């Protein structure tokens, strides 16, 4: 059965780029959100198997959104995708419950490696 994903990013280009990569690798992208508030609403409605979450978004950051989703569902699998490459950023995300951290710009292989580790084997 296909894994179901929610893609969260304020950039339409990046949402499309991630959607294309996931769908190419057998993931069903059930929703896409352009801000944190919309992401929390869609998570509640769609209950995806995992979320890809941009870190830097206007109004509400990916980190704040991660916290809200984890409060609602402590077992939520959220993979942070960020241009921030400092180790501190990944550590902070892990502290509040992120399952994985991917640095932009990413390759398909890097994304698949994280999916295999945190969502389950069989990608790629």
């Amino acid at each position, binding site marked *: 059965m296909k894994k179901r994903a929610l893609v969260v990013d*304020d950039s*339409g*280009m990046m949402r499309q780029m991630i959607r294309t990569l996931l769908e190419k690798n057998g993931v069903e992208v059930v929703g896409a959100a352009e801000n944190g508030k919309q992401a929390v609403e869609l998570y509640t409605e769609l209950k995806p198997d995992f979320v890809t979450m941009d*870190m*830097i978004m206007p109004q509400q950051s990916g980190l704040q959104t991660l916290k809200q989703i984890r409060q609602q569902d402590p077992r939520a699998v959220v993979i942070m995708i960020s*241009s*921030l*490459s400092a180790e501190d950023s990944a550590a*902070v995300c892990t502290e509040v419950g992120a399952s994985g951290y991917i640095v932009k*710009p990413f390759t398909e292989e890097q994304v698949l490696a994280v999916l295999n580790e945190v969502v389950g084997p069989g990608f790629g």
Partner: protein
Amino acid sequence: MAGQSRPSISNAHLNAFVQPAIHVLATMVGIAAQAGPPRKHSAITDAEAVTVMIGIKGDYTGTILFRFSERLACRIVKNLISPDREIEELNSDVQDALGELANVIVGNATGHLDALGIQALMTPPIITMGTNVKFVFPETDELVVVPLATQDGEIEMNVAFAMQGPPMADDERRHPR
């Protein structure tokens, strides 16, 4: 910080932005770029067609600007979102894609600055379209322009910042936006 304690923008500072810019353009866009010699400026008056601005705050405050000609902007966005069709106008897709591109470059640069012991947070990008724009920077900011040459024209990367105020507290450093 005004006065003699304010450090100048060094080659290490500039490389913190130049290296990610070249890397991101190559891996994300598929365009090879080569950095030219940096030049000091006091203002920018000859705006290119598209300018993306990202603010920096932390141990340094300032602004990073990326300026693109219309031709180069369209070429970059074609590579990013629609390899099969030409981009012929500076529409919202172009704004979105160039904003994200700059976001990724500066985000990567904060990691390089971190390695230099400089903590920096970034603001979301602001984009201006059109050439009739003048950018004026605070007198405390030092402005350095680095040209990035590509086969489709030049991207001008402007690094303008100054060290201001005390270094960030540890708590703020560990909780980026």
